[in-house]
């Protein structure tokens, strides 16, 4: 009995239930003060996180596959949930990040400071965590949709936590519209699958033939619906404003985890098929390349710290798609190594991106808390007041650029090796994959440029504005989650062998064809050498640091102002700003970014008057593509809009009439 109680799946399900009810204590203001109730709900979330992580890791080790049935009286039959290594792998970020974010919120969104919305925020945060878990646990289309909708709606309430601000409201509405467009796609996806299999239950891995037209329709709808949630270019339009306007710990959970649920959906759908045609792989790879390059190019042009991070999520989703694309192409050209490398690279990047992006969003939250602004160009010199935050943000920045010796490097290395394996293969498929390697290199270079900009302008130099000088370091409740995430970045980077074993099992679930090939990951990826090289690098840095300190102690050392090339009165406003740092790159990418700038025109004569310069990189895809198209649709469709009266009773009538019509139609 005791064994049953602590079986991995029991742990996972109870963790999800506990997370779902974690916000309940705040609903009884008469019984408990808000601050105490918040403490209780944080404790519940932490317990849920620990239990869920333990269950997920145990599943990954034991490789257990189980299926549960919940017989209930709703239409479409019983709900089925199950646990397998793929689910367990996605449960890692789903339980890790919200647990960290909940502890962070205890200080960042304290009940005493935000009495108006802390109840709503806490309740929906728990619900969102639980429903994300539900989505990856669901094993039939209908339960999947239930969980998906709860997730989407609770995320809406979280994005619009501060719904008294107009820009927050606007971001929330945009998110709501796009997420429902995605849900509409899912409404099409599951009936299509039902047509293929005759059941709402998810088919077994590799049980469907991918060559039929219906399969292609399933692939395209899945790509649309899940791509919209994952934020793949050009379906990313909701993402920048939603991530920027949500509270930072919510952005961490959304960017770190919700996007990954979209990736999960796509990988799960792809796992149903065998005999995948070449164009599926090429489409996924091409979308990945476009998202990666364009996402990071947009990021470089941003001035808003959180918007910038949001665009980096698009870039990283692109990298994940590139990995999935390599795996698919490997399946087509019959290269087991490409399949293993691409899929495990993509899956590892899912976890890695969740870790470092959550770290960066939490770090950004601390900075915003301390400076009172999201504008990068108003910050500067934050590192002096927030030494720990700056160090941890630096770790996240190095990790997201994919630089050694941190975790981002490991997953990108997997994907690169997949590309290099493709080089040896014959045929156009392999050629397409090899051209993606330089694209990934370009993404890496641009990411370095962007994070040098963020780190340099925000944390280094001198404060750029009196009003937004950083005031204080954050408390331990904010620092501890960041320390944990930063530690994980280092740990996975230095000891990738530990996660690789868990990863191998997960890729086998997705690609059952591999089971017979017996390709151990250790032979494909130099896991030990990554550890050795990383360790060597750190030892060398440590030795040089010791030597340099001794040198400094032995020679005279003095301090003065920065060398201004002879200019006597330097001012903080003369520092390079985020816009000036990015100017060259933005103008190189002007053909997609469409930057606006207002240049001063009255600079003439010896004593020109006051003038101003502004530059801005808009969300070009939304503003130049979608909005004009939607406006045209709006004007064209004015006739139909008469149906939309705004009277609820009338809508209920519509539903009834539709049902009766459908009922009649089914008789003929």
């Amino acid at each position, binding site marked *: 009995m005791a064994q049953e109680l602590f079986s991995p799946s029991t742990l996972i399900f109870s963790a999800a239930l506990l997370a779902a009810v974690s916000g309940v204590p705040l609903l009884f203001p008469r019984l408990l003060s808000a601050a105490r109730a918040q403490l209780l709900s944080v404790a519940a979330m932490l317990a849920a996180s620990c239990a869920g992580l333990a269950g997920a890791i145990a599943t990954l080790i034991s490789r257990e596959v189980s299926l549960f049935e919940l017989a209930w009286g709703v239409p479409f039959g019983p709900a089925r949930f199950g646990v397998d290594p793929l689910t367990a792998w996605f449960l890692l970020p789903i339980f890790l990040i919200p647990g960290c974010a909940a502890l962070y919120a205890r200080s960042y969104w304290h009940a005493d400071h935000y009495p108006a919305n802390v109840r709503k925020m806490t309740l929906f945060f728990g619900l969102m965590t639980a429903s994300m878990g539900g989505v990856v646990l669901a094993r039939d289309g209908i339960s999947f949709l239930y969980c998906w909708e709860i997730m989407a709606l609770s995320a809406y309430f979280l994005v619009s936590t501060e719904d008294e601000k107009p820009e927050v409201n606007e971001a929330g509405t945009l998110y709501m519209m796009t997420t429902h467009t995605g849900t509409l796609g899912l409404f099409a996806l599951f009936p299509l699958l039902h047509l293929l299999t005759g059941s709402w239950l998810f088919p077994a891995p590799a049980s469907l033939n991918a060559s039929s037209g219906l399969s292609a329709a399933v692939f395209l709808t899945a790509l649309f619906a899940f791509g919209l949630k994952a934020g793949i270019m050009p379906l990313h339009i909701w993402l920048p404003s939603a991530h920027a306007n949500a509270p930072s710990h919510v952005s961490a959970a959304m960017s770190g985890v919700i996007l990954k649920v979209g990736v999960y959906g796509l990988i799960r759908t792809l796992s149903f098929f065998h005999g995948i045609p070449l164009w599926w792989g090429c489409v996924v790879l091409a979308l990945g390349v476009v998202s990666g390059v364009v996402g990071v190019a947009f990021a470089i042009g941003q001035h808003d710290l959180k918007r910038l991070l949001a665009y980096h999520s698009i870039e990283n989703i692109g990298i994940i798609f590139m990995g999935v694309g390599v795996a698919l192409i490997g399946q087509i050209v019959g290269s087991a190594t490409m399949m293993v490398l691409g899929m495990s690279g993509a899956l590892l990047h899912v976890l890695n991106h969740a870790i470092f992006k959550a770290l960066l969003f939490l770090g950004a939250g601390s900075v915003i808390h301390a400076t009172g602004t999201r504008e990068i160009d108003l910050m500067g*010199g934050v*590192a002096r007041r927030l030494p720990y935050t700056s160090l941890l943000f630096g770790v996240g920045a*190095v990790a997201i*650029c*994919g*630089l*050694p010796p941190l975790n981002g490097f490991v997953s990108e*290395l997997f994907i690169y*090796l997949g*590309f*290099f*394996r493709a*080089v040896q293969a014959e045929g156009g498929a392999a*050629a397409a994959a*090899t051209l993606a*390697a*330089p694209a*990934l*290199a*370009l993404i*890496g*270079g641009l990411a*370095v*440029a962007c994070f*040098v900009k963020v*780190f*340099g302008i925000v944390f*280094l*130099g001198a404060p750029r504005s009196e009003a937004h000088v950083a005031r204080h370091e954050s408390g331990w409740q904010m620092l501890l989650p960041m320390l944990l995430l930063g530690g994980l970045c280092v740990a996975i980077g230095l000891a990738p062998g530990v996660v690789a074993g868990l990863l191998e099992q997960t890729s086998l679930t997705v690609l059952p064809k591999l089971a017979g090939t017996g390709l151990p990951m250790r032979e*494909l990826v*130099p896991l030990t*050498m990554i550890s*050795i*090289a990383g360790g*060597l*690098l750190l030892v*060398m840095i440590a030795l*040089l640091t010791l030597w*340099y300190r001794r*040198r*400094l102690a032995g*020679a*005279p*050392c*003095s*301090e*003065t*102002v*920065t*060398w*201004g090339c002879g200019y006597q009165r*330097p001012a*903080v406003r*003369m*520092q*390079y700003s985020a816009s000036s*740092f*990015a100017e*060259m*790159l933005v103008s190189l990418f002007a053909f997609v970014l469409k930057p606006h700038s207002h240049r001063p025109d009255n600079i003439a004569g010896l004593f020109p008057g006051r003038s101003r310069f502004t530059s801005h990189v808009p969300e070009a895809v939304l503003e130049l593509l979608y909005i004009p198209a939607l406006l045209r649709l709006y004007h064209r469709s004015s006739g139909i809009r008469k149906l939309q009266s705004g009277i609820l009773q009338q809508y209920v009538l519509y539903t009834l009439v539709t049902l009766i019509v459908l009922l009649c139609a089914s008789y003929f």
Partner: protein
Amino acid sequence: MTNSIIHIFLALVMPPLLLGVIGKTKALFAGRVGAPFLQPYYDILRLLHKGTVFSTTTSWVFRAGPIVALATTAVAALLIPFGAHPAPISFTGDMILYAYLFALGRFFTMAAALDTGSSFEGMGSAREATYSCLAEPTLFFALITLSRLSGSYTLSGMLVNINFSVWMHTSAALLLLVGGMFIVLLAENCRIPFDDPNTHLELTMIHEVMVLDHSGPAFAIIQYAAALKLFVLGAFFVHLALPYSTGNALLDWGLFIISMLELAVVIGVVESVMARLRLIRVPQLLVAATILAAFSTLLVIR
């Protein structure tokens, strides 16, 4: 083992000599006697014994910049084969570590520059960020071409594989690669026509302007790291352009040293006969290098 020791010894000792040879070549072209070959060593030693002036604006990042730059370049030096001898450390995928180590060094050098709060150094790091992004794909096209030619996934396997007969069979692809990689070599090491390591006109510089505020031992580290970077990237290029080997271990080391000196002379000649490019022309030249390398990839994978 002996080869590894010679490798490490050469990587430690030889890099500043290349700068000395470049300087001497340029002096000969200008009709001057020029500084002695060993001048860069004297400069570095002298700087090591000097005191340091720190800007009050700076933090730990400023101090970490030179150290990380040197450490990453030193690890990269262990990954690249010198001449016909394989590198001391070689494993599947080391070429990606090689490329990304330079990126890590660059990250900290640029961040250290921004740490001073000087607009000149901001300019330098913005330029470095832009140009290095454009140089990165060229290196990866080259790696793909080499991997395809050799069937190997390690730098040693790819580079040592190139010999006279490979050149004969794929001369078009390798010629394009030599062109592309030479441009990248000059750009990554901030040589003319991209940057002038000798000028002190801050407005037009890239690398030198990023390190304006460093002094004393830190500046010595920077000088040495820059020389080492030229040496390490040069060793990569020498494999492509001068793929001789004799089969005798000792002769091969001699051949490698001579090839590196030849490379230094060529760089010196280029610096003597060319002027710096206008900054807006730099991206165009870098994109041209990428296209050359992309063509070579297409030639070998077609």
